[in-house]
């Protein structure tokens, strides 16, 4: 989230797209309802299903799964046509005024493609050469701008031409949403383009789990930029993250493409040395120009005295990859399926239920030599070798199950979706011999160090030299201090004044150095464990604070815990003031320029150079992580710099009304064992005419390890079900409560039919299209059992992140 949960109370209009917050993020509704009750705020819910969130909405907008870009594209056209966008914000804070290279062409010119498409093997899928996707630069090397927005090569005009094709009529035909509902939504959310108003967009996996997932998010971000809603109270682009600490696990770099704090994993070809890494990966402008300080300080935290200027701060100890995407989830399981991975170590994850095409992923597990799982219960993954229908004697994988403590039974911090890092003390004893995951990791590392000391393997230095001094029983606060960062030597400013004394914790990443005098595990967390005032004068680690003060009354609560970065509650908050530094609206006054004091001040930590005046060069460039300081209406992803509608890989539509490109042209289509019982199989419309989607319910949790084993929650929601419309049920002769079979090209499952008015058939391109939905929590284990929804879902991912297309695929359904 750019903003945070409590800030929702400041919004005038909410639009929830691809999230069922009322069930899956219930606390959100506290603040949404407060805004509705106290300030007359309105809620729009856009979803293929009439969810519990929709039941709370002033306006429900049904769209077919997989058509969000059409929906947002239509909105962008409407906002421009009706002049509803926030002009002053758009001109000054976005790249709307920047001129594009005349060589750049888009789908309106090239039938669904951008300039630079290369399809080597002529299979219809390829990659882009991005040479033409660029700004016009002046002789000084700055982007050329036309703040009248009239130049036909301005981002604004090119974007306007791009979305001119997204007419209400066409959008209605492809989404299945009646034109009047679309228009009502566009108009209502468009009302937040008024300078004194703000609107927020809340989204979750309904936006991201598509082959165009990243572009869906781009599209909604563009809407927010056009309406001037980013960086302001009650605004923002708000991803409602799933698990309790998926924000934190992402921050800590448990992902293939970066180490900690979003610092990229070194690539072998480009970055064989630290010098090359710094040269190639550090932008000349933006806050990322400090990247050398981030990576060197991390290397110091990891390898301590063994990381020196002479050995490139132990840069060789980090693995180098050819292409990070080769190691993402779907590729990982394809490699495992191909027998290329022999060992798997799991810490609290259940891919046997959660992975896409989960029959294929469970088959991949059988090819492992060994698997270690740290978990709290015997999940389907722990016991994949004795799944229904599997002969244990044929599975040669050695399995090690390490009983883990749950969250109540250990201490440590977690980050909310709003980047708020809160500390959890240990409040209960773990059962039996179960141990906290950090103690398990500690014991394994201490044993590994022992093994490598007695019998070194190839290049054992990274393990022998690894700084791992947390004690025989690990001291969590010691780890927290390392993540936070500390001074290895006295840190001095250019005048020789001491900024941080040797051994002291860092209060901000602003003092990080690239010469080895600071160590910092995760730069964005700098300050979270440093001593801070809780608002009453009492000092304590910032993350443990429980201060109640709320200056300004906007719900920022700066003395409660710690939000990264630097306790900032709303990021890009320079946008909360107008170009001259004055708040856009008195009741949404967050930070402002104090002319007398010559600095930015207010109720939040300014996301800007505090002494840079609005009249200074760059004083109106609020997006400090971007090289040009502007919000990107034009911004390149792998599919191109503007979102364009493409259909899901499995679609009920034979022709894309916007171009002759049916699918995202840069996705990877896997064909492993195609045609076999288990494999990367793709469904034909003639055989699988029904759209299916997956979701969650409030009573269960993800793949079920934390809910399906509990009897209270099992009583609430005991088994797997499939929701379908009354119209489809009638066509298929299915009654509410019947057992039904649902089949896709990957597998077949059975469940109870829930015949409901929550789904309605869509009219798509002149024909009736049915959509059904199902929760994906269930599996054969635990108390609340059921078939695995992901046995149906496809092994295909978004072109940028490769997040699987769980939210739109084809099935057929019949009575069991």
């Amino acid at each position, binding site marked *: 989230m750019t903003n945070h949960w409590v800030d929702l109370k400041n919004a005038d209009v909410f639009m929830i797209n691809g999230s069922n917050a009322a069930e899956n993020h219930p606390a959100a509704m506290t603040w949404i309802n407060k805004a509705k009750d106290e300030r007359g705020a309105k809620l729009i819910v856009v979803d293929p299903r009439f969810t519990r969130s929709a039941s709370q909405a002033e306006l429900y907008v049904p769209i077919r799964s997989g058509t969000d870009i059409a929906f947002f594209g239509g909105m962008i056209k409407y906002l421009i046509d009706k002049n509803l966008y926030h002009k002053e914000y758009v001109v000054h804070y976005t790249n709307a005024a920047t001129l594009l290279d005349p060589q750049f062409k888009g789908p309106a010119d090239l039938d669904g493609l951008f300039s630079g498409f290369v399809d080597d093997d002529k299979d219809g899928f390829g990659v882009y050469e991005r040479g033409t996707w660029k700004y016009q630069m002046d002789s000084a090397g700055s982007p050329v701008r036309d703040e009248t927005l009239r130049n036909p090569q301005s981002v604004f005009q090119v974007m306007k031409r791009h979305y001119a094709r997204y007419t209400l009529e066409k959008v209605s035909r492809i989404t299945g949403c009646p034109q009047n509902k679309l228009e009502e939504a566009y108009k209502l959310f468009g009302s937040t383009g008024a300078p004194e108003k703000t609107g927020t967009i809340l989204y979750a996996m309904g936006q991201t789990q598509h082959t165009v997932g990243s572009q869906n998010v781009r599209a909604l971000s563009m809407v927010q930029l056009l309406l001037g809603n980013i960086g302001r109270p009650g605004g923002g682009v708000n991803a409602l993250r799933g698990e309790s600490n998926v924000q934190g696990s992402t921050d800590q770099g448990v992902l293939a493409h970066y180490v900690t704090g979003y610092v990229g994993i070194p690539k072998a070809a480009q970055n*064989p040395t630290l010098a090359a890494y710094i040269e190639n990966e550090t932008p000349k402008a933006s806050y990322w120009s400090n990247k050398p300080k981030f990576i060197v300080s991390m290397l110091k935290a990891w390898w301590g005295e063994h990381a020196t200027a002479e050995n490139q701060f132990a840069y060789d100890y980090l693995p180098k990859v050819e292409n990070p995407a080769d190691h993402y989830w779907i590729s990982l399981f394809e490699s495992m399926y191909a027998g290329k991975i022999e060992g798997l170590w799991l810490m609290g994850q259940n891919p046997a239920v959660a992975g896409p095409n989960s029959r294929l992923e469970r088959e991949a597990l059988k090819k492992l030599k060994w698997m270690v799982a740290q978990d709290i219960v015997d999940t389907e993954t722990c016991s994949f070798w004795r799944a229904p229908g599997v002969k244990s004697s044929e599975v040669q994988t050695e399995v090690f199950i390490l009983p883990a403590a749950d969250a109540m039974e250990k201490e440590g911090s977690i980050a909310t979706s709003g980047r708020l890092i809160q500390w959890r003390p240990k409040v209960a004893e773990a059962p039996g011999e179960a141990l906290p995951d950090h103690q398990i990791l500690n014991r394994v590392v201490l044993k590994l160090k022992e093994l490598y000391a007695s019998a070194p393997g190839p290049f054992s230095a990274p393990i022998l030299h690894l700084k791992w001094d947390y004690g025989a029983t690990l001291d969590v606060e010691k780890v927290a201090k390392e993540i936070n960062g500390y001074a290895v030597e006295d840190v001095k400013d250019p005048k020789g004044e001491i900024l941080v004394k040797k051994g002291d914790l860092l209060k901000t990443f602003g003092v990080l150095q690239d010469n080895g005098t600071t160590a910092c595990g995760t730069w964005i967390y700098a300050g979270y464990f440093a001593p801070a005032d809780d608002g009453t004068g009492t000092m304590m680690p910032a993350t443990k604070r429980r201060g109640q003060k709320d200056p300004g009354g906007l719900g920022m609560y700066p003395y409660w815990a710690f939000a990264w970065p630097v306790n900032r509650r709303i990021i890009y908050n320079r946008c909360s003031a107008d170009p001259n530094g004055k708040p856009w609206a008195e009741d949404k006054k967050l930070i402002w320029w104090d002319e007398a004091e010559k600095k930015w001040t207010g109720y939040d930590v300014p996301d800007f150079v505090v002494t840079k005046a609005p009249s200074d060069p760059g004083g109106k460039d609020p997006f400090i992580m971007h090289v040009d300081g502007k919000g990107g209406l034009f911004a390149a992803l792998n599919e191109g710099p503007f979102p364009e509608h493409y259909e899901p890989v499995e679609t009920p539509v034979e022709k894309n009304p916007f171009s002759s490109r049916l699918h995202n042209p840069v996705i990877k289509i896997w064909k492993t064992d195609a045609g076999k019982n288990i494999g990367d199989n793709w469904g034909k419309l003639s055989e699988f005419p029904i759209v299916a989607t997956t979701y969650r319910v409030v009573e269960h949790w993800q793949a079920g390890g934390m809910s399906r084993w509990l009897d209270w929650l099992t009583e609430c929601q005991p088994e797997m079900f499939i929701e379908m419309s009354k119209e489809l049920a009638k066509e298929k002769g299915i009654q509410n409560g019947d057992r039904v079979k649902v089949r896709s090209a990957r597998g077949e499952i059975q469940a109870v039919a829930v015949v409901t008015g929550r789904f309605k058939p869509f009219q798509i391109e002149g024909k009736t299209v049915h959509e059904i939905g199902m929760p994906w929590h269930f599996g054969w284990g635990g108390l609340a059992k059921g078939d695995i929804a992901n046995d149906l879902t496809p092994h295909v991912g978004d072109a940028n992140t490769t997040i699987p297309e769980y939210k739109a695929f084809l099935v057929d359904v019949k009575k069991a």
Partner: protein
Amino acid sequence: MDFTRRHFLKYSGLTAGAILLPSSMAASTEKIRGFPLHKPIKEAATICPYCSCGCGLLISKGPDGHILNAEGDPDNPQNRGALDPKSLSVRQLSQSPLRLKKPLYRAPGSDRFVEKDWDWMIAEVAKRIKTTRDTTFQKTNAKGVTVNRTPGMAFLGGAANNNEECYLASKLARALGLVYVEHQARI
């Protein structure tokens, strides 16, 4: 609000009691003596382990260290005391008879788990990791560039873990040269 929630409950409880009691008894409310709990209860504030709202929980636990009750923490600005059914179930999460209590080992081809002690498990797991790392380790790639990586092993998980655990996992995985490091956030 100077009034804490605890005060509020105390006063509202008394009021409700007074309303429910027959008028003759209402006057005697003052005389009701405290009911001594038969065991000392400790209360501590923490954060819900389910979704990413970060709701505050108040946990009451008995002298054996086990959770007796969970309720919303009214001081936490995220939720101000409100909770969903999963948060309320953390007592069961901690005390389910189905929780894993001992390390378990399943041999190749076996149809069962057998209980093992921690020392044996840690030693065997470390051996597997070392063997796989050492036998699949790549010092250089096809072009001779130093890559120091371990393609034969993968690490998954972390979204339900604390930051400090995720950090340790990240640090350890990379020190082992792992390139297949993924978790819930990808899917």
